[in-house]
């Protein structure tokens, strides 16, 4: 190999370059190959578990030019987090070649997230002359499954669920041709060699015929299909068919929670307003569900999203989806294929068992889903994209944080909307959406996903951060994970630090945490919290007054219970008679609730923001029962006027005494407005303005005393469009530097990031 005699010309150098980041499965090696040939360099390129390893030999200036263009022009899906090199003795390479992957010691190569179908592949599956015509698993280096099919690193076909599909000669030729779009595309496949679709009935018996035409016919007949996608099954039906929607809701036991739909961009525009930022997100490689505002003339059935002005839409992101939409149906419901509270079904056998009572037919295939991954959800508020669920398309890309950890840290997350987070160095790997941990199946999802992510990024956590709630499953699970140290983290401190970390900030800030309920250091359930603090510790500055939640978790399910508690606390006898009048239909239960409030039995005290929203929502008669998390608050949020108009309405009175914000004036004001027959839209808007006024006043007081000028917003209530857009106007206007979430959710899906960073800091203080 080494032909030293020829190579020892003047100025020849050999660089050994390692590129780290998202550099595998994104067309990086062909890019390097072509770039090296362009600069007439000799050497090799290979995937290793540390990243892409390049040996480049040539004139020193040429190698420098090569490095500069590498940094500048790297492929669109790649992300370079580190670029390091050593200068070595030249060894006289004769050409430039891509060589097989080798496994190194530390695993630092990042697996890319799944990528939505690219335009080239879309064209091929629609082109009758192309060999990928009508093939639902077509992909290339620019698109296709990644995270969901990967078992280990380095990212090679052998370590994916494509391993069992040997490539046909034609696919192999494309795979080995550096000039081809499928050069080293690990999941590359065609009808001759790749996975196959099958349509089966509820018993798993194959339905003979053309699967695509049959699927269309079944959907047209109002049937429900369970369709195996990228990260799990979807339940699919015609979004325009009212009867089908009703059947789906009944069978799934999903009363009112909005159903996501899938359609082409033109169709989305027909039903919803699509702004430029929203269009960008819809068509991005991540292809999330984007929450869009329905057009005034939108005539889609109300059953899709009862009581909502918005609709969650995503574009087809796999060839299979595109083919389904390339027929008689322009818009399809694509809701997650799971039974109430359980993780998404991902394996054929389990799906038949779990979804057999819901779906009429199963459209599945024989490519295994290794990592379950739900669809991501994003909303654009003003000009800010707010991520509500960070999963498919984003995971496992890391969030770069301002702290640097020498020991890997695990943040175990919350109990609902769970994610966990592995912090390695300054990279925080937030897991896909795990969801509700209240079941054995949810726990199994947690552990399987943790094992997989640990394996992919090559780290074993040494420090663990978890929520201090004594009843959280996540905390029990965390305690069972062996580590050098376990740190209990307060829920809202974790929210606040999650927002700091999301912004790469590591300094003192004022945290405005508007949230549901989280366990506080005094054993109460917090949720409307103005904190000061940093990545290590916090002080509770102001909070909403405590109110009993009659029946504990039942009060979270039934918002009118909290309304009764508020009425009794702030309007005493008058409140009781108002409760009698408003909630008369509840009969005997109302008397029980009153006794619960009066005696305090099973009525934990809470300063929750979400529960205040619940109470007002119930007072306005909007929502008595939360059939999904946050329903009452969301429906109240849908009631408000446009911010530009709404902000002129006067807030209800409130006062601050010591550390406590008393909302008595809100309850009295809402009651009085109700009595005077004021429109619910006005009351709802005035209520939102009051919450903003409380925040503004509390922040002003804290800032005056502490001189802290950075304000971080976190907690699930910030998903409220009205609150968020006005806070983004008001607080910077008052002279604060405002931090909002950008990469992880403000809701409990972001908790794990905050926990990991806090645990990292506390550990650093111990050692």
């Amino acid at each position, binding site marked *: 190999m080494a032909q030293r005699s020829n190579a020892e010309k003047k100025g020849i150098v050999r660089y050994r370059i390692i590129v780290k980041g998202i550099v595998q499965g994104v067309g990086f090696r062909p890019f390097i190959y072509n770039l090296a040939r362009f600069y007439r360099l000799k050497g090799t390129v290979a995937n290793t578990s540390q990243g892409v390893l390049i040996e480049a030999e040539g004139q020193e200036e040429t190698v420098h030019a090569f490095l500069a263009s590498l940094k500048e022009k790297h492929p669109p899906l790649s992300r370079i987090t580190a670029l390091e090199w050593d200068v070595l003795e030249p060894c006289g390479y004769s050409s430039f070649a891509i060589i097989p992957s080798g496994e190194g010691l530390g695993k630092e190569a990042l697996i890319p997230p799944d990528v939505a179908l690219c335009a080239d592949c879309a064209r091929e599956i629609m082109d009758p002359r192309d060999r990928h015509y009508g093939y639902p698993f077509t992909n290339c280096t620019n698109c296709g499954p990644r995270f969901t099919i990967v078992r280990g690193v380095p990212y090679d076909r052998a370590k994916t669920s494509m391993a069992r599909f040997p490539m046909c000669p034609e696919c192999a030729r494309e795979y080995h041709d550096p000039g081809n779009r499928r050069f080293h595309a690990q999941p590359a496949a065609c009808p001759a060699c790749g996975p196959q679709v099958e349509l089966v009935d509820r018993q798993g018996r194959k339905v003979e015929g053309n699967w695509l035409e049959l699927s269309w016919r079944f959907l047209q007949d109002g049937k429900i299909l369970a369709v195996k996608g990228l990260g799990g099954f979807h339940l699919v039906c015609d979004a325009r068919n009212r009867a089908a929607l009703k059947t789906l809701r009944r069978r799934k036991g999903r009363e009112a929670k909005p159903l996501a739909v899938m359609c082409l961009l033109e169709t989305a525009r027909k039903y919803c307003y699509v702004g430029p930022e929203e269009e960008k997100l819809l068509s991005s490689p991540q292809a999330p569900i984007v929450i869009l505002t329905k057009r005034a003339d939108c005539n889609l059935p109300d059953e899709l999203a009862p009581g909502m002005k918005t609709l969650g839409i995503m574009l087809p992101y796999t060839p299979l989806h595109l083919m389904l939409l390339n027929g008689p149906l322009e818009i399809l419901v694509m809701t997650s294929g799971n039974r109430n509270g359980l993780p998404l079904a991902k394996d054929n056998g389990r799906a038949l068992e779990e979804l057999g009572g819901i779906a009429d037919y199963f459209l599945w295939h024989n490519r295994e889903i290794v990592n379950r991954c739900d669809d991501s959800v994003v909303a654009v508020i003003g000009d800010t994209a707010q991520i509500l669920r960070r999963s498919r398309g984003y995971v496992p890309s890391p969030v770069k944080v301002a702290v640097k950890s020498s020991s890997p840290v695990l943040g175990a997350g919350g109990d609902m909307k769970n994610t966990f987070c592995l912090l390695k160095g300054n990279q925080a790997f937030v897991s896909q959406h795990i969801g509700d941990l209240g079941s054995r199946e949810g726990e199994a999802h947690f552990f399987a996903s943790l094992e997989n992510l640990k394996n992919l990024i090559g780290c074993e956590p040494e420090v663990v951060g978890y929520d201090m*709630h004594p009843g959280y499953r996540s905390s029990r699970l965390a305690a069972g994970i062996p580590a050098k140290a376990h740190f209990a983290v307060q829920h809202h401190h974790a929210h606040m630090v999650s927002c700091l970390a999301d912004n790469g900030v590591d300094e003192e800030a004022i945290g405005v945490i508007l949230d549901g309920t989280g366990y506080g250091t005094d054993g109460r359930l917090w949720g409307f919290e103005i904190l000061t603090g940093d990545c290590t510790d916090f002080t509770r500055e102001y909070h909403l007054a405590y109110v009993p939640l009659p029946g504990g*978790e039942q009060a979270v399910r039934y918002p009118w219970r909290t309304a009764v508690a508020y009425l009794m606390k702030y309007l005493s006898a008058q409140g009781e008679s108002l409760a009698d009048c408003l909630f008369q239909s509840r009969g005997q239960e109302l008397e029980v609730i009153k006794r619960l409030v009066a005696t305090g039995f099973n009525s934990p005290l809470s300063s929750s923001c979400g529960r205040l929203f619940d109470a007002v929502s119930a007072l306005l008669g909007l929502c008595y029962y939360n059939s999904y998390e946050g329903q009452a608050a969301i429906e109240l949020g849908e009631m408000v006027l446009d911010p530009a108009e709404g902000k002129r309405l006067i807030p209800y009175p409130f006062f601050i005494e010591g550390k406590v914000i008393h909302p008595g004036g809100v309850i009295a004001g809402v009651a009085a407005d109700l009595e005077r027959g004021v429109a619910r839209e006005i009351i709802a808007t005035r209520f939102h303005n009051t919450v903003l006024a409380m925040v503004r006043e509390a922040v002003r007081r804290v800032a005056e005393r502490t001189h802290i000028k950075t304000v971080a917003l976190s907690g699930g209530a910030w998903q409220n469009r009205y609150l968020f857009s006005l806070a983004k106007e008001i607080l910077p206007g008052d002279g604060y530097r405002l931090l909002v979430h950008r990469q992880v959710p403000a809701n409990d899906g972001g908790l794990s990031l905050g926990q990991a960073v806090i645990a990292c800091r506390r550990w650093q203080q111990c050692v």
Partner: protein
Amino acid sequence: MKENGRDIVLLAHGDGGALTHELINNLFLRHFESNILKTLTDAAVFSVNEGRMAITTDSFVVDPPFFPGGDVGKLAVCGTVNDLAVSGARPVYLTASFILEEGLPLADLESIVQSMAGACGVAGVEIVTGDTKVVEKGHLDKIFINTTGVGYIFPGVDLGYHRIKPGDKVLVNGSLGQHGIAVLCKRYGFDFAGQVMSDCAPLNGITSLLLKEIRGIKIMRDLTRGGLATTAKEIASACGLDIWLDENCIPVDAGVKGAAEMLGLDPLYLANEGKFMVIVSPEEAEKAVAVMQGHELGRDASIIGEVKPGKGNVYLSTSLGGTKLLDLMAGSPLPRIC
């Protein structure tokens, strides 16, 4: 209330003097039928048979002392009798020690003593010795009773964690949660249509029947504080096996279900005073159910679950189709939903 009259408990009732004697003779001896007790010696003396004996003690404090379906006296007898019964014993003798609050109406004390005597009659046990103390008003809440019981283990009976094997079936003798709801309603003044009554009852009748008929009984436990879930968790942890319960098979009557839902409580964690859990070999499970159903305290007996290999966890297959992990109760339940 007449402070000087004889119709309330006075400090002097506990000083060992005239009033104490009056109390013993006119109240306790009148209700508790026992030749051994009648001797009023310093200790009860009795002869023993061959074999093994069981002894247990428990103190009973309940707010309020009277509740639908029972009172603290009935509870004091049943609680101790049941602990012996589920241990595989035939209860024989009880002791009863009273600590009374000054000012307690004597009529209340009498009705408590009366219901103790009634429960002893049903259970076929004798109270053979006792004690009475009175404390100043405010130093305790009305009445505390301690009972200690002894009994003979049925010959050939061997119950314990060591006998539990994967595949064994889990049974209960009836609907859960009645005692817990009955006491809470009385204590806090919750008013439900169709009052829930405590299930307080001596279980030695049904357990002895079961032990006589069924060889394959592995263990029995009464489901008092913490309810079915807590007891199941204790058993699972102790033997290192998993217990799977099926929500659809666990009997909970409509009254308890409705009340528990309104109060935000889980019937599986509510206290019972006349319910017990049995773990039995799979071959004899059906027969055991039939035997239990033949007794009036086992009319709703059913198989509610199974023992599986595992790591000491208790799982509940829910009616929604998921599997919930049941843990020991951690104080009062706090919402997990954010």
